[in-house]
């Protein structure tokens, strides 16, 4: 009896599906997609896109694991260490994913093919850049056809980016609410009037909202679309998206280290302790919870795959930009609020996995974080210890006592209901799940650092 099953998120496309076998990911390609797949290879499109790192490479395997008579071939794509979703990306990550999608559509058209879908679910971040992962997205273009994925592209990429630019809305929150993209009708209603004077927004958003999905018209009989028309539409979208940028806004967090009362001496001392501890432990995956601008994520081993999370999208936006500028490719910055991590969604709650279920790291960093969870969000120390023990085997954590100026600030205008927030209680809670390996007070502060290992 064959116990293999398609991945729960891979059931919509009749061309094939993804499945897991012996810890590897495979893609079943159906006979229905035979000619499209053959064109994808023989036109040289696959080779060209792989060479430039735009799509995930695969190995073609002559094994029909399902013994299915519809089987044409099996693909074994390269491994992606961490799957992230657009509801966890900052503005520039979504923008880069959009530009990649358009570039692929354009390159495909040059070779007589087209992208049949244009969702952010087909994009992942690998080695610091977006990469397209759905090898069955390319099909042959026949003159006279429209771009079937046009509306999907606008909803998944263009509309949330525009709302971020004109309304300061955060793209990760928009795409948390609108999982399949923000409809043109909603975007059009929210955008200011002046956007109607911009030809790109007028055409791709306002006109789209007005016309909706109208299909039957005499116009369509009179004029047939050509690949040149579609190229013009795609290039127009590219220049429109290329020009979209959000202003650098000051939030409480993205200037945390520059402007707060934290002294440089304290930061230097903390960096020295963390650096020396990191040389004593082995890890190949790590998470930095509350990474801010990634100052400490960057201390981690360059060979380790690191997820740097923060709930503030401004911090992640700055971090993504600086990682790109400095060509640091082992850190994936994501907008995650650890007090409300990404839930499992989609059909049967299985299409997109929750952040916690995707999280299993050799090492966790939780620096200057615990007071925000315990005092800012009333989460008990034992709950915090339990969550951390679920997601990481080793932990570097900083305890910040009540008499710390930061905590004092937090308690200034509220009743202190946190009797159990003390170093002894902290140690009791965490030693339920961890063994303390090292403990050191941070000079120039009353804070303490711990290196712990899961029991």
């Amino acid at each position, binding site marked *: 009896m064959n116990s293999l099953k398609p991945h729960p998120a891979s059931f919509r496309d009749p061309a094939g599906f993804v499945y897991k076998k012996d810890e590897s990911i495979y893609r079943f390609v159906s006979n229905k997609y035979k000619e499209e797949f053959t064109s994808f290879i023989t036109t040289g499109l696959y080779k060209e896109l792989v060479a430039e790192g735009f799509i995930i490479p695969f190995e073609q395997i002559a094994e029909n694991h399902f013994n299915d008579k519809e089987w044409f071939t099996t693909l074994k794509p390269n491994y992606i260490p961490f799957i992230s979703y657009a509801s966890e990306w900052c503005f520039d990550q979504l923008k880069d994913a959009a530009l990649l999608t358009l570039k692929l559509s354009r390159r495909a058209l040059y070779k007589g093919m087209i992208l049949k879908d244009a969702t952010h679910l087909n994009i992942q971040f690998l080695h610091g850049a977006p990469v397209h992962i759905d090898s069955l997205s390319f099909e042959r273009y026949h003159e006279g*056809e429209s771009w*079937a994925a*046009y509306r999907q592209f606008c909803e998944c990429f263009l509309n949330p980016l525009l709302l971020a630019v004109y309304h300061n809305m955060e793209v990760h929150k928009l795409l948390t609410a609108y999982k399949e993209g923000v409809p043109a009708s909603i975007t059009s209603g929210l955008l200011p009037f002046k956007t109607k004077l911009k030809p790109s927004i007028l055409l*791709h958003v306002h006109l*789209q909202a007005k016309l909706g*999905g109208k299909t039957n018209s005499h116009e369509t009989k009179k004029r047939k679309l050509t690949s040149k028309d579609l190229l013009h539409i795609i290039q127009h979208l590219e220049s429109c998206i290329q020009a979209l940028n959000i202003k650098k806004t000051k939030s409480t967090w993205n200037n945390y280290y520059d402007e707060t009362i934290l002294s440089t001496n304290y930061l230097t001392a903390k960096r020295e302790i963390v650096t020396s501890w990191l040389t004593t432990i082995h890890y190949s995956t790590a998470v930095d919870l509350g990474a801010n601008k990634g100052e400490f994520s960057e201390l981690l081993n360059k060979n380790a795959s690191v997820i740097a999370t923060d709930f503030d999208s401004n911090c992640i936006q700055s971090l993504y930009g600086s990682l790109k500028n400095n060509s640091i490719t082992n850190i994936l910055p994501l907008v995650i609020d650890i007090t409300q991590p990404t839930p499992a969604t989609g059909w049967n709650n299985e299409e997109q996995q929750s952040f916690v279920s995707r999280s299993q790291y050799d090492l966790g960093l939780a620096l200057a974080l615990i007071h925000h969870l315990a005092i800012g969000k009333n989460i008990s120390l034992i709950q915090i210890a339990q969550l951390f023990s679920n997601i990481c085997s080793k932990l570097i954590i900083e305890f910040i006592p009540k008499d710390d100026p930061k905590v004092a600030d937090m308690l200034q205008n509220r009743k202190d209901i946190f009797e159990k927030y003390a170093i002894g209680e902290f140690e009791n809670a965490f030693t339920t799940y961890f063994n303390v390996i090292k403990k050191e007070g941070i000079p120039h502060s009353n804070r303490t650092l711990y290196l712990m290992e899961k029991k």
Partner: protein
Amino acid sequence: MTHLLYLDPGSGSYFLQVIIAAAIGALFYFKTGWNWIKSFFVKQPPEDSKKNNNEQP
């Protein structure tokens, strides 16, 4: 001709794309004309607009 339409047919919105393609064509025409007129008055910058040409087939 096999079609694996797994997005709903309205997604492509033929009519909308016809209009957009025509409008972009008109905009391009207008821009080219405007640049042509401008070229009589403004000195041409050095040619650096070929950066994307290597992407052409």
